[in-house]
């Protein structure tokens, strides 16, 4: 116990040296924790962006829908989606993990206007929710976003092909869930230009209610998309959702299984992990460096201590304690600093710029670093352990030294 007292005294005795040590550890840990947050946020943003158009983090559909996915069937729907969403939100385990849920219908249609007709893809969703998913409200170039029933927003090129402008009333025909056809007249509220060719040339968005009325789904939807606060919980949440649903006809797929981008994102994740790994190594090396030097430069001191009769074990204890204390302070400070900076950057985000415009899906340009408690704890533990362990090695060497040789050694 008195190791600690001695260690502290030693530390404060040579403030400059100790400060240097703590600072070095702090810097290393700060960089590591910021890196952690940055990569986490990066991956999270990538995943969210990749999944929010198609599948969400978890996609709930009927099994039949998945089987016939190629044909985009409108007759294999979830019959009571509102109840499903309620059940999920009220569940004590899954509920808190949910960021948002979205009900969707996606189907092939025929658009008719003044004798001109064109096939197009219709997406029916709740307009407010879709602001966070399809984000077409940000791409409106003429008119405005959907503000009520019977309104649609349509891609620029598609509008041009049909010769329509804002305010035009389109007739939309589609096959229904009952195996017949139906038509609905909807007004063009706005025209969008997303920069993504597949959207601008072939897609329009309508309200969920209009889609359900057109397709005569009787309140059913093809899929419920669930976006989580932490994308990493997708697989577990999918399993949990299946249990909550308890319905053999329904299936919940995590994006890792349903989304095409999964492979790409895993690869990105693997890359990020290796980068993080390297940085962690670098950080440890710095700590090793510092601790080694702290001990090594006091060889003389150690020699004198030994000459005075301090035992090997005691010397070891003192130096290890010093190392640990410095390590703890430095790591704490470093992690806090990292946390602070990450939090600040998290509100403004890092703008990756216009370069993402050409991508195949609508994506935010800004990456928000995410703070993860586990991650920070990891970093902190690495810092402390490294400092402590690293102090042991040279301390052991010092402890074993011949007193006279130690005193004589000019570092």
């Amino acid at each position, binding site marked *: 116990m008195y190791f600690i007292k001695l260690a502290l005294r030693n530390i404060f005795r040579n403030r400059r040296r100790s400060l240097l040590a703590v600072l070095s550890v702090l810097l290393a840990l700060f960089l590591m924790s910021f890196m952690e947050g940055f990569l986490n946020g990066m991956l999270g943003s990538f995943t969210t962006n990749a999944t929010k158009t198609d599948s969400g983090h978890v996609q709930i559909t009927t099994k039949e829908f998945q089987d016939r996915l190629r044909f985009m069937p409108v007759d294999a729907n979830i019959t009571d989606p509102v109840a499903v969403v309620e059940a999920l939100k009220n569940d004590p385990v899954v509920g808190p993990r949910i960021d948002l849920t979205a009900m969707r219908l996606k189907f092939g249609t025929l658009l*008719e206007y003044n004798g001109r007709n064109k096939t197009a893809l219709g997406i029916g969703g709740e307009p407010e929710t879709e602001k966070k998913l399809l984000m077409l409200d940000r791409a409106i170039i003429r008119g405005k976003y959907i503000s009520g029933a019977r309104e649609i927003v349509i891609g620029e090129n598609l509008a041009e092909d049909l010769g329509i402008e804002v305010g035009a009333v389109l*007739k939309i025909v589609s096959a229904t869930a009952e*195996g017949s056809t139906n038509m609905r007249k909807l007004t063009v509220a706005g025209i969008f230009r997303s920069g993504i060719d597949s959207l601008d040339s072939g897609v329009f968005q309508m309200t969920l209610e209009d889609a359900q009325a057109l397709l005569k789904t009787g309140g059913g939807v093809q899929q419920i998309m669930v976006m989580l606060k932490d994308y990493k919980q997708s697989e577990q949440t999918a399993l949990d959702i299946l249990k909550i649903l308890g319905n053999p006809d329904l299936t919940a797929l995590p994006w890792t299984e349903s989304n095409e981008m999964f492979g790409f994102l895993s690869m990105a994740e693997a890359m990020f992990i290796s980068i993080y790994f390297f940085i962690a190594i670098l950080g440890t090396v710095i700590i090793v460096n510092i601790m080694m030097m702290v001990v090594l430069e006091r060889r003389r001191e150690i020699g004198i201590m030994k000459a005075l009769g301090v035992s090997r074990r005691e010397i070891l204890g003192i130096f290890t304690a010093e190392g640990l204390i410095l390590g703890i302070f430095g790591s704490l400070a470093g992690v806090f600093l990292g946390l602070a900076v990450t939090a600040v950057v998290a509100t403004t985000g890092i703008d990756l710029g216009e370069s993402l415009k050409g991508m195949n899906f609508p994506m935010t340009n800004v990456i928000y670093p995410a703070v993860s408690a586990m991650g920070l704890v990891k970093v902190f533990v690495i810092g402390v352990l490294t400092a402590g362990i690293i102090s042991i090695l040279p301390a052991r060497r010092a402890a074993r030294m011949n007193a006279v040789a130690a005193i004589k050694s000019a570092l």
Partner: protein
Amino acid sequence: MKRCLILLAIVLAAPCIVPAPLSALTGEEILARMDVNKVFTTISYTAKMQIAQGSVVRTKTMKAKATSDGKAIVEFTNPEDKGIKYLKIDKNLWIYYPEEDDTIPISGHLLKEGMMGSDVSYEDALEEDALAEAYTIQVSPEDASFEGKPCYLVILNAKKDTAPYQTRKIWVDKVSFVGWKAEMYAKSGKLLKESVVLEVKRIGNADFATKVRMTNALVPNRYTVFEMSEVVLNPKLDPSIFSKRFLSR
């Protein structure tokens, strides 16, 4: 199924009129015999259409009224399609949707779409009106038969490249002039569609094909069966019903 509505039933049925010296019949004459249009000026009937796509079979029921000069109106009565109407005036076609009280014209590429999700296209239906115009007609010298009944094998070859089928073969009963079977071929010679008459009824002076099956030869588990009933010849029909305005009523 538009085709059956007016045309298939009409084309494949035949009036039983004065028998003519068989050997001297040309293709045109045979077709003319088949043309049941001569038997009525107006017609009304109810019909049932079964559309099979693999394991899924859907049934549609409808009431139809038509004239021999190319006008027709069909109203669907099955629950899923209730109130939907087709209006045909010569070569123009519209679908009326009751919920929106408005119509969609079927034109351009849409004509090639299958009606009501079947493999029978609007084009198939409309084309029947003018087979003689679009095709050259020959009678095969060979003896042909359908299920034991001796038939003429009438071969139609498209005059223009834009005709939906390059070749059509029709097995016409030598006695009743019912067109039992028809085969539609693509330019490559590949069989695309086939239609077979399953039931014939005598109504008035003519034999009508009241049950017909049309099959997609490329995916044989896709077929459509059309069945007519309650056929009334020459009912009193108000000519104004064949108009877009009337659809709303």
